[in-house]
């Protein structure tokens, strides 16, 4: 579903040198600021997940019925929900579910996809053909449909939702890592490494993998954002964590019935999700650029 987006994000930036000197410096500074911002957002969200009690003293699960449905204020930054629970506290505590979900999803895609891609790319022949046709079948199924099918097989829950999302990205990781491995495998220096008496496994580990996995890492960063979005989608649809859990998708879903009167219930968790996804995207772009600049 996001293949086109990934492709554009992973293309190396044009090496066009800026014309003048002063604007060049300004243009070079600007991306660095957005990268710093992206890193800052991710660091804060990770901190939320690790030590939520440092950021909020309110209980995410117990509500004060008298304070129900209050707008954002100094006491409740993100306002409160229908049962009087502090929304900011729920978002902070929810980071743990969304982030671990994203990490699990990326891990599933990265490990399974890269393994398939590297095996297909380095062995070639009939193995390559079979594995890649399986990947083609995976690619032909819409992502959401695939994750829904997987989650129905595995059962509901945060981890299962994450695995289901991870399965949808296996094909993208497999394709990318295969194409990179094939590109590097054909290079003179790999043949030269065999010529120096290298064994198959040694050459794969020492030359092929290090030179082919940078774009895969960039894709992993991109997938992290996409996975959080997809997990929130599953949570919104009710396939993720069960209700009292403050998972981000579930928060947005619960706020839906009060959309007309209490905008903050859907908007503010939504803004957090968007910020995290965009930050992961920006970081992924920065990895690709760094790679393009090095080669």
């Amino acid at each position: 579903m996001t293949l086109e987006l990934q492709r554009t994000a992973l293309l190396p930036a044009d090496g066009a040198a800026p014309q003048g000197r002063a604007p060049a410096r300004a243009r070079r500074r600007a991306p660095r600021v957005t990268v710093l911002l992206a890193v800052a957002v991710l660091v804060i969200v990770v901190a939320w997940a690790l030590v939520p009690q440092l950021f909020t003293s309110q209980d995410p699960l117990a509500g004060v019925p008298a304070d129900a449905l209050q707008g954002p204020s100094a006491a409740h930054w993100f306002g409160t929900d229908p049962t009087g629970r502090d929304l900011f506290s729920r978002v902070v505590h929810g980071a743990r579910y969304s982030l671990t979900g994203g990490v699990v999803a990326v891990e599933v895609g990265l490990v399974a996809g890269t393994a398939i891609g590297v095996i297909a790319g380095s062995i070639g022949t009939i193995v390559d053909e079979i594995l890649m046709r399986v990947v083609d079948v995976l690619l032909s199924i819409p992502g959401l449909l695939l994750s829904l099918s997987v989650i129905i097989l595995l059962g509901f829950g945060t981890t299962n939702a994450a695995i289901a999302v991870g399965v949808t990205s296996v094909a993208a990781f497999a394709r990318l890592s295969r194409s990179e491995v094939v590109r590097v495998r054909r290079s003179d220096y790999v043949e030269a490494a065999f010529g120096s008496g290298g064994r198959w496994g040694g050459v794969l580990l020492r030359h092929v993998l290090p030179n082919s996995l940078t774009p895969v890492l960039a894709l992993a960063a991109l997938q992290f954002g996409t996975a959080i979005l997809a997990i929130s989608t599953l949570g919104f649809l009710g396939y993720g964590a069960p209700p009292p859990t403050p998972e981000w998708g579930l928060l947005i879903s619960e706020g839906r019935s009060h959309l007309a009167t209490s905008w903050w219930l859907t908007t503010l968790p939504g803004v957090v999700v968007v910020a995290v996804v965009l930050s992961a995207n920006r970081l992924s772009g920065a990895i690709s650029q760094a790679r393009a600049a090095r080669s």
Partner: protein
Amino acid sequence: MSAPQAASTGSQASAPTPVLDVRGLSVGYGGRGGLHQVTHDISFSVAPGEILALVGESGSGKTTTAQAAINLLPQGGQVLAGSVALDGEDVTDASASRWRSLRGRRVGLVPQDPGGSLDPTKRIGDSIAEAFRIHRAAPRRILADRVVELLERVGLDDPARRAKQYPHELSGGMKQRVLIAGAIALGPGLLIADEPTSALDVTVQRRIMELLDDLRRESGTGILLVTHDLALAGDHADRVLVLQGGRVQEEGTSDVVLGNPTAEYTRRLLADAPTLATPVHRVARTPEADEAPVLAVTDLTVEFGGGFLVRTPVFRAVDGVGFTIPRGTTHALVGESGSGKTTTARAVAAFQGAASGSVTLLGQDVLALRGSARRALRRQVQLVYQNPFGSLDPRQTILESVLEPLTNFGLEASASARREHAVAALERVSLPAALHQRRPRELSGGQRQRVAIARAIVLHPELLILDEATSALDVTVQAEILRLLDDLQRERGMTYLVISHDLAVVRQIADTVTVLRHGRTVEQGTTAEIFASPQQDYTRDLIASIPGGAHP
């Protein structure tokens, strides 16, 4: 070749308005580290019907100068001082739109790489017609006729059919003819040809240069020829401008610059670029009568295509090639691209299987070896690639690259002994210790090729295969590498298999030669015999195409 020179020398006396006049040109590139000046105060002019050659090595500023003359400097490049005039009109500060109307009409460009310069989705005829369309220079109904005329003018056979073909259906030489046709379409007074033949085979190179010669003689077009090949410039240009580090080293008629150079740099260039006239100092080792050769190839045949599920037509890249190389000597495989010389070498190095025939290296049948036996063979045969930029892992330091073969075979007793051995190999190829921790991208082309040689010799192989090992390098660097290889051969008694399209180099370094064409052996013998009395037309043609005939 001497007649047009005499003619143009005569026309110079009457001093017509030069088609290109460059005065005191300095060009710089702006970058992060400030402005970097690459050419300094360069002046020259090209008269109608004259060929002026800008000669120099990479980084000498010859291409930058040509680009500045047609206002096509890459981003960041700017003219710092000086002036450029086309047909007497000062165009130094001409606007972008003025330049668009000048390019094509007044000055045409023949690019370096004919393969990448034609739109692959456009028919040949449409590509050429574009020049007319952009400048609205011909009515649509006669466009097709004009295109066919032009294709005929540049010597393409069956021009009407060629106009309907796509670039991939044409050979490199034909594509270059098409590009020349596009450049002369609107009859510009000046052609800028930037290394027009360096991507082409030597026989094709000669024909393209003859075409350019004809054009300037018949149409009076002035040609600015940018080349690294002093001998080529001497054969075809009326005057030569030698550049080094962005400065003019020498300027004069070809006779004077090549026959009696005054600048030290020109003399070095001439000495380092071998021609057929260069004396050969090589003393060949004479093998004993009963000595077994290091390498014996008999009746080798390599085929591509076929396939198990999807059948493709079988292409026979090497067809019954055979030769032997005695210990301590050098054998050369020569031929044009597609002659099967690289495929033969790869079969010898066990990188390529064969359909039939045998390759015997030190008594072992190379083609039959599999697995660990083939791996063990790598200690005896090493290959140095043409492109030093691609044959080294960009992530490894050069010491790691050279260390790797030793680690792979577990040679030497300890890690530190292996390290010493690798350092010794790097020092043998004159790479100082300061460079050992650098990565390939931090080195020049010549230094990288030294690393590749160090990696090959660190195992003390019997046979070293050099696949166009010096053809990507500047002539002075090439000369250094060739000297190094010669020293190594005498020191260690190594045997070389050299693959080259450059017969002048082959003549200097090889003891025996096999001439290949379309995968078959055309002629075989000692280097002296082949060059002194070639028996086949193809060999004669190859030798006659070596530049440098005009000024021996």
